[in-house]
């Protein structure tokens, strides 16, 4: 909730609205197109990229299979180095833990970085309710917070805005005159820096997410580009890190793999500018109190599903968003969740479990571009299929015998019965040829009613020809003596 709560609505409806936004379409096409090409170059130059992907997948799969012991090891080592560990079953528990810690410190403000997981739990709103103002310090997070909008991309939360729009926003939010700010990226970054420097030097509470946590040394890692994250994790006297339980890795050797996979997949860099590691607290150096909040919030249930647990391998690189032809057209807000794009389409329905989020697994053509780039080889199309199946089964369970009255469900049952019997299948073909007659014009169908009208709104459909392949084959066999 950098700056707002995503609006929950069925994907098709949200997408229809988003598609009309010409500025959004242009911004997204340009940004995703550029990062797509850069990522391809950054990964192609590594001869062992495919081996790295496999190593990343195997490391994550192994850790998830032994998640309980690695988490306990992490806790033990964080505590041994002077940190405190809190376990949160869900968003409410996590928010209460952070709020109580902040209130006990008498904090009025907090500076934040790597906010995706805290966005997931709505921490900023929970803190605001306790009179604590959370300030996003990642440039793009700051932009969406100032705009009172939710983020629209995992890595580039303001990808939907261009620099002219950002300038206008800064002019308003920072109370500047038009002559004081150009739309040059350097000028915009400098304006944000001036705004944030004050906060870094005066605010005593830092709140962060985490990219990784190393179990065998109790070390937390944040990877970033701007250095603002390091300010947040080193300058305040108290640091609270909220981390999903799936972020733990066994030991430092895992970092060799992930620190290659992550920057190349996300920002298309060989190495990201700032990688911060910290282990508990050290007297006279950095925060003197460190709290690690380990968040479940639905993850254990994802872990329990054999077909879907690979969802938790995600390292939040966002490569799948950048290559997704659906995301590139509708943008992040249409997904109604802080996790947009292909990974959001499999993660959100499992974490949120709402009727709106249940439309997300259908927001894909199953083209497989996401799976192809995923640095930890999450087979997103097959998880999408599994979630579609879950959605259908749930709908049936809810409606009982009435499920057959659902138009799609009924049509699918009927089609399955027809396809199970070659005679019925041929009857259907003959029937289709007859009933199409009123709709056919010059060999094509240009308008259909109801469900299929979605097709003919922009596309013609070829008419069913007079003879099927099967009929042609038979006539040929008859001619050649019927040996077949």
């Amino acid at each position: 909730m950098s700056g707002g709560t995503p609006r929950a609505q069925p994907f098709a409806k949200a997408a229809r609205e988003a598609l009309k936004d010409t500025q959004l379409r242009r911004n997204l096409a340009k940004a995703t197109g550029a990062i797509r090409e850069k990522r391809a170059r950054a990964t192609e130059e590594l001869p062992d990229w495919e081996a790295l992907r496999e190593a990343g997948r195997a490391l994550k799969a192994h850790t998830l299979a032994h998640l309980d012991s690695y988490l306990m090891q992490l806790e033990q080592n964080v505590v041994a180095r002077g940190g405190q560990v809190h376990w949160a079953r869900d968003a409410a528990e996590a928010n209460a833990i952070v709020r109580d810690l902040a209130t006990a410190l008498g904090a009025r403000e907090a500076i934040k970085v790597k906010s995706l997981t805290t966005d997931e739990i709505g921490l900023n709103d929970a803190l605001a309710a306790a009179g604590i103002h959370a300030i996003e310090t990642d440039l793009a997070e700051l932009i969406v917070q100032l705009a009172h909008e939710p983020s629209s991309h995992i890595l580039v939360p303001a990808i939907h805005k261009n620099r002219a729009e950002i300038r206008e926003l800064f002019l308003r939010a920072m109370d500047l005159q038009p002559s004081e700010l150009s739309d040059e990226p350097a000028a915009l970054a400098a304006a944000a820096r001036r705004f944030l420097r004050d906060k870094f030097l005066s605010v005593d509470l830092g709140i962060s997410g985490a990219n990784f946590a190393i179990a065998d040394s109790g070390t937390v890692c944040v990877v970033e580009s701007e250095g603002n994250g390091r300010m947040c994790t080193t300058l305040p006297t108290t640091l609270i890190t909220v981390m999903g339980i799936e972020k733990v890795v066994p030991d430092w050797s895992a970092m060799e793999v992930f620190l290659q996979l992550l920057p190349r997949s996300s920002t298309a860099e060989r190495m990201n500018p700032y990688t911060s590691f910290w282990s508990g607290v050290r007297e006279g150096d950095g925060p003197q109190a460190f709290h690690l909040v380990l968040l479940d919030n639905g993850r254990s249930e994802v872990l329990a599903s054999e077909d879907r647990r690979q969802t938790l391998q995600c390292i939040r690189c966002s490569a799948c968003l950048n290559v997704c032809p659906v995301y590139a057209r509708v943008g992040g807000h249409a997904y109604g969740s802080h996790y947009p794009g292909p990974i959001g389409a499999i993660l959100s329905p499992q974490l949120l479990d709402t009727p709106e989020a249940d439309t997300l697994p259908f927001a894909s053509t199953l083209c497989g571009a996401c799976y192809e780039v995923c640095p930890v080889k999450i087979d997103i199309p097959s998880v999408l299929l599994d979630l579609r199946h879950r959605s259908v089964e749930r709908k049936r369970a809810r409606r009982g015998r009435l499920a057959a009255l659902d138009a799609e469900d009924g049509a699918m049952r009927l089609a399955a019965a027809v396809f199970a019997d070659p005679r019925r299948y041929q009857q259907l073909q003959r029937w289709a040829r007859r009933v199409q007659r009123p709709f056919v014009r010059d060999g094509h169908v240009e308008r259909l009613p109801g469900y299929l009208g979605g097709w003919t709104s922009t596309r013609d459909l070829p008419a069913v020809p007079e003879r099927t392949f099967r009929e042609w084959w038979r006539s040929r066999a008859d001619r050649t003596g019927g040996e077949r």
Partner: protein
Amino acid sequence: MRIGLFIPCFVDTLFPHAGMATVRVLERLGHQLDYPEGQTCCGQMHVNSGYQREVVPLVRNFVRTFGSYDQVVAPSASCVGEVREVYPRLARLARDPALAADVEALVPRVHELTSFLVDTLGVDDVGAYFPHRVTFHPTCHSQRVLHIGDRPQRLLARVRGIELVPLPDATECCGFGGTFAVKNADTSSAMLASKVARVLQTGAEVLAAADNSCLMHIGGALHRQRTGVRTAHVAEILAATEGSSWGGTERAA
């Protein structure tokens, strides 16, 4: 070698000429084909829409129909991908070890047409003649499920008279996605608009692919917009010879 022809339901019903062209090419190369009449549909639409349970009888039917053939060939990358990649999982879901074993034995023998020509038969010149400007759309399932690579293009490159022009952003999805085209018709249409623009950019008169499903989608817009570009399954181009230069009866848009 007993070759069984697998002609997917919508090819049989809507695009019989792709099936006929497949027969023509393979017979011209001296192979005898059989079309087992027990076949219907691979069930891809059901699986992709979340109705997996309905498909198990179709898996059984497929195994029953094609189990005895040395090789099975289909002019559809998408349906072959369904059989090769999804059937094993469905058989496991059905908790039927006998079915799983049958599927496992059959799957390696089920081939998409261009892979069968290039890999199994070792042919890249099928003796075709097609004097037209053609661009080729590598469909998502042919590339990212079946990984057929440039096999269709290698075959097309050896067709006499053809002018094969590259399609920009070729590997981007056309927006079909089965029921996606209806459930998310607006997003699908937005993706289709980009694909159509790319096709027109090539100046080609024919758009070819190894999947009639994607061609039906892109062709639906090419026809709606009266672009003057027609679609052809790659088999139809490979079937064309001098004297019968246009194998199919696809109408120009």
